[in-house]
């Protein structure tokens, strides 16, 4: 069979099918891409990591929260101002690889004036914050998550109302 000669299968008829062929290939490639999209073998723990860290800050004994030294009871939501330091935070949460997670905690009073700031893994926080704030992508950068909640802070055995702003930074 010859394509272009009379009596053969005409090129004209085959040319008519080119749009259909292109469409068929496009549809199948599209379905394949969709299937690939739904086959998810990546695990992104960042949202969970920041929740765990936030809850550790709020509920952990021997951290920034006020703890009854006799009973060992922790009072979540009441910050002991004396414990609100970089040292306490670094002692309560340590990673064997420093570029794992970092956080900045800002304590505000009721008038939203800054009372005190503390860092967890402050070195890496200050290194990565500019990249994260400018939303630079890539392995060298990080994602930053901010959350502000109302709390009490304990100063000279008196509970005062205030807010805590946590900025949790997770390297990519």
């Amino acid at each position: 069979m010859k394509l272009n000669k009379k009596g053969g299968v005409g090129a004209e008829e085959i040319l008519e099918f080119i749009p259909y062929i292109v469409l068929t290939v496009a549809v199948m490639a599209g379905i394949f891409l969709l299937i690939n999209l739904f086959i998810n073998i990546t695990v992104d723990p960042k949202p969970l990591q920041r929740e765990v860290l936030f809850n550790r800050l709020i509920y952990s004994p021997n951290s920034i929260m006020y703890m009854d030294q006799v009973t060992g009871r922790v009072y979540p939501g009441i910050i002991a101002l004396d414990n609100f330091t970089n040292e306490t935070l670094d002692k309560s949460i340590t990673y064997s690889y420093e570029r794992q997670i970092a956080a900045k905690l800002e304590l505000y009073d009721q008038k939203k004036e800054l009372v005190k700031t503390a860092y967890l893994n402050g070195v890496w926080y200050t290194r990565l914050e500019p990249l994260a704030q400018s939303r630079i992508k890539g392995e060298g950068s990080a994602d930053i998550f901010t959350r502000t909640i109302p709390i009490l802070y304990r100063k000279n055995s008196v509970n005062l109302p205030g807010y805590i702003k946590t900025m949790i930074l997770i390297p990519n």
Partner: protein
Amino acid sequence: MYLFNKKAKTMLANLFYVMFGLILAAFFVIAVFLRVESALGDSTFHKRFYARDLALLVDSMHASNGYFVMEYDVNTPDNMPLDINLEPDHVFLTDRDDKPVESRAKTLFRIGFNEYVSVNKSNITVTPSSFKIIFENNSIRFD
């Protein structure tokens, strides 16, 4: 003498198109099956998932007080046995092998530890089942 008239030519072109479509469909089905099979047969996802999940679970237990036991279910395919290891600063998973654990490829995730809670080294050999995560006297272990 014409071998094919106009109708025959159109039918033949149709036939080519159908044949092309069938061949393409066959390639498509094969490609999809291979892709799905490679995704399901690879233990990377399971190792990543369980390493992260267990490490973050142990991490969150550092905010706890008291004594409690958790039953942790592991659902992996029968042909994908994994070993789960707890270290003081991380959790790592490996494919089960005759080689010593140290020489296997590890998938690990780090734990935020401190001096108030001790994390005891544990090794769990999993055959699709469950194991216990025990928090007792400020120490965590897998059992």
